């Protein structure tokens, strides 16, 4: 290309119609670098998932939370292999030993000589089982109820929301305690379902909100106009938008469920302490021996760590999956 152009006759108009009919026209010529990025025309197109992944990875706290949870929950899942002792192994010769490397009692022993580390690990497993199941079940229930309420609106919505409100105005812990006392009878799974019966309201509300707002959007109208049935619209079009908030909510539910189970067990209305170690139950028995600090510190610390990690993870997930929210650090 030379520098002096072929003279453009003054009468020549702007790009003749043919060039612009098609709307976007690429640059009239390329300069060697083909990349439009180099020409500054566009920032490289990134997919939705790319963005989510990048922001999530950049969120160091979320990574720490994730790693922490993997470690802790991993210990719980593989308790049989990780725990040095069985949690029910009584050893009356070794009562109330402080943590020591000797004998592998890293967390010490409790008042009947059971290895505390093992009991904590099995407690984590209990928490994990309860927490994840509650989150899972309540998410599904909440999703269904929220979707129906939000999509159909009107009377159905009203009824379902009254139901949700009813559950919400009940004093949660008290009702849970009552239910646990009367129905739970120490069974871990009954307890899980009792808990799930309360946790669905949060997700239902969020899902309903999404459905209500998206129901009016144009692409739903378009889908309806092309004959799509209700279920199809709900699944293909609206549902994907709820996944972000649901994931975030579910993550937080896990932590909330774990703490609630711990509280119930602490008060004596949770899982049966004789058969199933629970972090809350451990704390309860620790009260009898306030001088043996390890009995209180380790279970509680575990709960705190789980909650912290879940909070970090939840924040990171919210950041990544819900970009509309103006994010404030921590």
């Amino acid at each position: 290309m030379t520098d002096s152009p072929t003279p453009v006759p003054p009468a020549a108009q702007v790009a003749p119609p043919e060039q612009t009919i098609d709307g976007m026209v690429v640059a009239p010529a390329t300069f060697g670098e083909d990349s439009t990025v180099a020409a500054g025309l566009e920032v490289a197109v990134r997919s939705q998932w790319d963005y989510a992944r990048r922001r999530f990875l950049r969120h160091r706290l979320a990574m720490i939370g994730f790693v922490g949870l993997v470690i802790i929950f991993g210990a719980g899942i593989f308790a049989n292999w990780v725990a040095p002792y069985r949690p029910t192994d009584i050893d009356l010769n070794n009562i109330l030993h402080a943590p020591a490397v000797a004998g592998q009692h890293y967390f010490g022993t409790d008042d009947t000589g059971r290895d505390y580390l093992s009991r904590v690990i099995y407690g984590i497993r209990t928490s994990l089982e309860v927490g994840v199941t509650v989150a899972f079940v309540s998410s599904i229930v909440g999703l269904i109820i929220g979707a129906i309420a939000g999509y159909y609106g009107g009377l159905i919505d009203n009824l379902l929301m009254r139901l949700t409100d009813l559950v919400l105005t009940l004093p949660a812990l008290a009702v849970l305690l009552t239910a646990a006392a009367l129905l739970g009878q120490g069974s871990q799974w009954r307890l899980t379902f009792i808990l799930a019966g309360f946790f669905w309201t949060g997700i239902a509300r969020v899902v309903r909100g999404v459905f209500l707002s998206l129901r009016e959007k144009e692409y739903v109208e378009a889908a309806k106009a092309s004959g799509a049935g209700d279920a199809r619209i709900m699944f293909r079009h609206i549902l994907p938008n709820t996944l972000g908030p649901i994931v975030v909510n579910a993550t937080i539910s896990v932590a909330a469920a774990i703490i609630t189970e711990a509280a119930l067990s602490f008060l004596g209305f949770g899982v049966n302490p004789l058969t199933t170690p629970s972090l809350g139950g451990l704390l309860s028995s620790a009260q009898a021996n306030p001088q043996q600090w390890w009995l209180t510190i380790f279970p509680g610390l575990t709960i705190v760590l789980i909650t912290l990690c879940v909070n970090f993870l939840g924040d990171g997930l919210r950041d990544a999956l819900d970009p509309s929210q103006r994010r404030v650090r921590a």
Partner: protein
Amino acid sequence: MLTYIARRILYSIPVLFLSSFLSFVFVSYAGNPLGNLRSNPRIPANTLRLVAERNHLNDPVVLRYFYWLKDFVTDKMGKSLLTFQPIWPDVHRTILHTAQVVLIAECLAIILGVAVGIFSAIRQYSVFDYTFTSLSFLGYAMPTFWLGLLLQILFVDIYLKWHVRIFYTSGLNNIGQGTWSLDRLQHIALPVVTLCVVSFALYSRYMRASMLDVINSDYVRTARAKGVAEWRVVTRHVVRNALIPVVTVAALNLGGLLGGAIVTETIFTLDGFGYYFIQSLQNSDFYAVMAYLVVTSVIIILFNLIADVVYGYLDPRIRYD
């Protein structure tokens, strides 16, 4: 506004009916009201039958509910099935104790939380901000009962080592001391701190987030463009707007806590409403349990209403008609 409040209250009544009825049915079927009495060998079968009849325990559930409701409303919350003592005096006494602890804790938490939230937002990314944000994260993650236990251990330890009672770790009073005595304060100090820490974490986080939201809004930019001094921008424009969501959260939180900080009261063996509930539950004292559930529901509904009213008062865009 008044019509709105009246309407809300009107709506709440059927809700209360429904929830108390459901609770009653639940409690009646799942539990055995005379269980404890029955298992006591000293009580003859005749007495049991009399008790059952007097309390309509053989009637269908719905009927029983109305009997209970009648007693509850007319006879000062009725009498306990277990002790045959009236329930109201216990409720009255324990609720006042809980109120004392909770109100002190919440006032502290609000004042400190709001202040810290404001300063964290103004000095974002500073050392102050990072410190307190991390602390509040920690406080948020810490389950109340663990904190309570730790404090308990700490002060038991101090007493055993140095024979000095700074704070008591259980009970409300030593005998003969009054409601506002130093002794009482020493007893409730630890529970107050326990409750305060978690609430403080909540409020400071909310306040900070709300402040940051408002500080970057257009109307704050307008105020600056008018030449208003920065401190006045903060106090007059930013804080006023930022407080709104925090106040709402505080009202709701307070409502929940007034239902008895169950776990905290259990740890410190305080004679509060929550502890009363746990004991009733442990003793299968069902009418007491019902009383607790109804009272707590009323409190929660009331505070929900308060939260909405306050919000409507502070934000002129919300007008209930």
